[in-house]
């Protein structure tokens, strides 16, 4: 495999999805820093030449630029059955949660960005309600998984579905949502944190 290149913003939870998975896989990537706040570099002509929609992260893999967290996770997971199950049912489940991470869960991603970078944290907006609702969907899923003896989002071990969901859940305090309201998520967050190769980002406590 030729050298991996990651276009990365330290404070962006989507970029953290990619960094986290790279770390779990023990892979190194050359890091190109994109200054989103306050630089706005995601809209620069130079970056749009790499990522036409201005989407972060971008992973250059075998010369191909892959844009967006879920796409990066899939590209890295290709051929690794432990992270991307090959069985039809579990593969379908992972696909379901990747779509959820890129769809309804965006409400929580946007909520965090607004709170951190636009000073809009505590209002009872439609966006906040949609963000809480998205967290609840994951909470409810994991509460039911637990009753079956399951710890992970899909199957018997961590998959890219866990990595796609983890940053947004772990960072929800950034927009004022406490983990005490989500016991199933709290338990799962601890499990992800305990995986070999786990790395944090600003906003996720590092117990040392």
């Amino acid at each position, binding site marked *: 495999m030729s050298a991996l290149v990651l276009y990365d913003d330290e404070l962006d939870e989507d970029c953290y999805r990619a960094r986290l998975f790279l770390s779990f896989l023990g892979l190194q990537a050359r890091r190109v820093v994109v200054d989103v706040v306050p630089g706005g570099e995601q809209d620069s002509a130079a970056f749009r030449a790499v990522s036409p929609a201005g989407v972060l992260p971008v992973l250059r893999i075998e010369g191909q630029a892959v844009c967006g967290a879920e796409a990066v996770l899939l590209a890295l997971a290709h051929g690794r059955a432990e992270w991307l199950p090959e069985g039809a049912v579990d593969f379908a489940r992972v696909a379901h949660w990747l779509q959820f991470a890129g*769809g*309804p869960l*965006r*409400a929580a991603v*946007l909520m965090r960005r607004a709170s951190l970078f636009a000073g809009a944290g505590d209002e009872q907006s*439609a*966006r906040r*309600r*949609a*963000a*809480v*609702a*998205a967290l*609840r*969907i994951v909470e*409810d899923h994991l*509460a*039911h998984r*637990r*009753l*079956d003896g399951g710890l992970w989002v899909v199957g018997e071990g961590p998959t890219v579905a866990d990595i796609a969901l983890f940053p947004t859940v772990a960072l929800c305090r950034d927009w004022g949502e*406490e*983990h*005490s*309201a*989500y*016991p*199933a998520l*709290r*338990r799962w967050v*601890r499990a992800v944190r305990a995986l070999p190769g786990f790395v944090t980002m600003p906003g996720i*406590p590092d*117990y040392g």
Partner: protein
Amino acid sequence: MSVTGDGGWYPLMLSADLEPGTAAGSTMLGRDLAVWRDGLGQAHVWDDRCPHRGMRLSLGFVREGALACLYHGWRFGADGRCVHIPAHPDLSPPGTIRAAPLRVAECWGLIWAAATDESGTLPEDDPALAAVPWVPVRSLRIEAPWQGVAGAIGLPEGELAAVLDRDVDGRVLAALLPVGEGACMLHLLAAEPAEVARLHDLADWGQDVRARAEERAGQVFLSGAVA
């Protein structure tokens, strides 16, 4: 049962949701609490405030039988007294530096805290629930006043926990933590023996209770596309 809402014992969380060596947050009638379990399995409940700089202790971590604050690493032992200050490792911290412990009880698969030192009957002393082991199902956060939820699920007036025998098969222990004026946590447990399918039904019933209570309270949380 004798657990009452005023000045009594409050069900903070399921015992199963506090693993040994971990800390969690809870809120009891607006009072923020740090709940942690030491390596021996004993649960502790303190006000969620480090005596040093006011940091939330619930964000801390358990080391060597003590709860360590995430901010500067000050450690507090089971009695709340500071036992270690990393910046002054040779100092024996004075006994006046201490976290504020609450009375704790653990029974029926739940962790309870007393709001005052004069709280009445200990939860362990209640005979109504001692007869059968309880299997934890789940807890749900409900954005609605606890009184409305208590009435909807059939808790006796003024009680925060009771055995229910309705809506779902078999006996259910429901316990309600008033988080604040407009929010509560509903804890659900099933009487043994409990088949897995029944536990799922009970978890679904909890989601149904949550949806209906929030609708009555005008709090609707719908996921979907947002801009």
